[in-house]
């Protein structure tokens, strides 16, 4: 009886929600003076960035990206704080069985190219699809592959902290340079160059490289912390 009442009320709720959602009309022109046209024209004419998503994420709404980077930083910090006591010492990790020789050689072969692909994705964030978050994640998967394959593979914890902190400091320093020289946090201070060049878009490329390093270091740190947890 209880279940029936719940199902019926959920059904009614669901029907009206669907009704309203279909009324939103995605892809239909609702508004003429929204911000989307300004984003398009400004990133083409003023910032000279061909990937509009990147110019929105890093420049128009760069403050949000700073917040998202901080969210990731917080997640890895909180995880490190909670799992602290349960960490193994380096080199005594419990892999259930060693990987086969094929996997070991394959992983060694793939690892550099995975890192290279990640670096390519975040360096070309303002030209092609992808960016700092995506590139950083790709690099972290390379480390995950190595950690899963080799029993004694270890990443220096201090080195991860250096990368993470320095990349974060670089991001905020760029913002503060804009604040002190132009009067607005994260404002572009470098020449924008020509569209579709590697050196275009001013600070956007540099910020995305910092984000890439930071995301890669943080995700690797999270994987490392979790893999090294004792039972």
């Amino acid at each position, binding site marked *: 009886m209880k279940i029936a009442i719940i199902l019926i009320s959920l059904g009614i709720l669901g029907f009206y929600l669907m009704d309203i959602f279909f009324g939103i009309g995605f892809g239909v022109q609702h508004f003429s003076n929204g911000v989307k046209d300004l984003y398009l024209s400004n990133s083409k004419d003023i910032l000279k960035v061909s990937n509009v998503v990147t110019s929105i994420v890093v420049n*128009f709404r760069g403050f949000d990206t700073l*917040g*998202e980077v901080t969210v990731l930083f917080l997640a890895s910090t909180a995880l490190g*704080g909670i799992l602290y006591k349960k960490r193994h010492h380096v080199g005594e990790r419990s892999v259930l069985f060693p990987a086969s020789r094929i996997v070991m050689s394959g992983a060694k072969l793939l690892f550099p190219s995975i890192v290279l692909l990640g670096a390519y994705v975040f360096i070309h964030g303002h030209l092609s699809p992808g960016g700092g978050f995506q590139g950083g994640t790709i690099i972290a998967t390379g480390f995950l592959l190595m950690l899963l394959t080799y029993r004694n593979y270890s990443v220096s914890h201090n080195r991860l902290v250096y990368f993470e902190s320095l990349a974060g400091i670089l991001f*905020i320093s760029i913002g503060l340079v804009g604040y002190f020289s132009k009067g*607005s946090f994260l404002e572009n201070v470098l020449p924008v160059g020509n569209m579709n060049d590697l050196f275009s878009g001013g600070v956007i490329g540099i910020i995305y490289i910092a984000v890439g390093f930071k995301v890669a270091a943080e995700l690797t740190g999270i994987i490392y912390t979790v893999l090294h947890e004792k039972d």
Partner: protein
Amino acid sequence: MVGSPVLFVAIPLLAAFIIPLTGMIWKNSVRIIPGLVLAFMFALSISLMGYVSEHGTIVEVIAGWKPPIGINLVFSPFTGFLTMLMTFLGFMVWLYSYKFKRNVDFEPSMKYFILLMLLVTGSVGIVLTGDIFNMFVFIEIVSISGYGLTSFYTRRDSAEAAFKFLFMGAIASTFLLIAIMIIYSQLGTLNIADIAEKMPLMDNKLKVLSLVFFILAIGVEAEIFPLNGWAPDVYTQAPGPIGAAFAGIVVKAAIYASVRLVYTMYDFGGAFDLFIIIGLITFIVAETTALRQDRLKRMLAYSSIGQMGLVMIAFGIGTKEGVYAALFLMFNHAIIKSLLFFSGSYLVFNKKNKYIKHVNGMGKYLPITSVLFTIGSFAIIGLPPFSGFWSKLAVLTAAADSKMVILIAVILIISILEAVYYLRVVNRIYFFDKKEKTETQKPSINALIAMICLGIIVLVIGFYPDLISGYLDRAATDLMDKGNYIKEVLTINK
């Protein structure tokens, strides 16, 4: 003007990234730097408040793009007042927990201070931002540092509390995104002032639906009645000072968010009635539940939820007097509840389940802490020489001015319950004998300073409420004047 609002976010984040590096060189820096940063934020908020009272609201653009395109921060008398309150409390929480885990482990204490600093930063960001998606990002920052701090003791119960909080917080974030998506799909903008101006263009059905999603999402952080299942567990299991940080800082930011939505963005009559109804239910349920608790921190948690219900009621009255009363209540609750959490943690220190009966006879062993707890209890009930009296009086007069007689009756009856359960604890402190042999913990000197500071504020505001009423009056006027907010933000020329 010495600084500008963006430093409230930029400096703490810079410090958070620097701390892991300095911690490798000088271990004490992980405790000192967050304190310096929080003190800087408090000083900055005072200096900006001085500027605002002379020159009017500061609107700051980020990345050099004017409001509808870029993100902006608004430092008005209203947001500035809340920023000042939060940064002050953040500093007090830091002072109280300065010696936290001092001799145990280096790494967890470093993470604790980073998370605490970013919890305050996120709350200040929620208050200052003028953009709903940016508000979402700051709510995420607050929630994630909250999850980390809740499970900090890595016990079974604290993990359960953190998981509960995580679960509700994750669903709330999804709802918040849906609400933002509905608004963007209809109006094509994310700026709060721009949305407020274009709101009449939106279809009524979608308007109500997005408001419902917003209230559901923000209600989780604001501890509104059916959504506050996480709160008592979190307050009980988190480290003592974090309870104060939640009650004084995080919940205030969430209440701000819902008020900004209803007063500035939506602004229709039904929403105010919704506030009164939600507030009343929260107030009645929480205060009656608090009466039945046998653990001290759970009782304080339910009392905190109840006070938030009262704040919602005061905002729901919808007049300038109501807003004034609500802000006064928020200020008082932040100060008094932090004092209660600080002193209460020492009264039940070292006890296994932290039952109320453990405070028996503590008046002899911990005289100063007991007096401070008593001051806090009397103040939160609303006894005359303390600051809580003025805020409760302000709520009642605001309700009387709007001819809501039944509301006054309900508030007064529930206040009796509040008096019963607080005086019960005070009675146990002074007139019962201590039975168990467990050792009492003397408060460390920095914790004592933090508690005495808060106690003095409670007494001073009790005798001279005029010290603060000027700020409150300007803040209330600022919130009520929606047209001015829109004008200030949209006509900025950078």
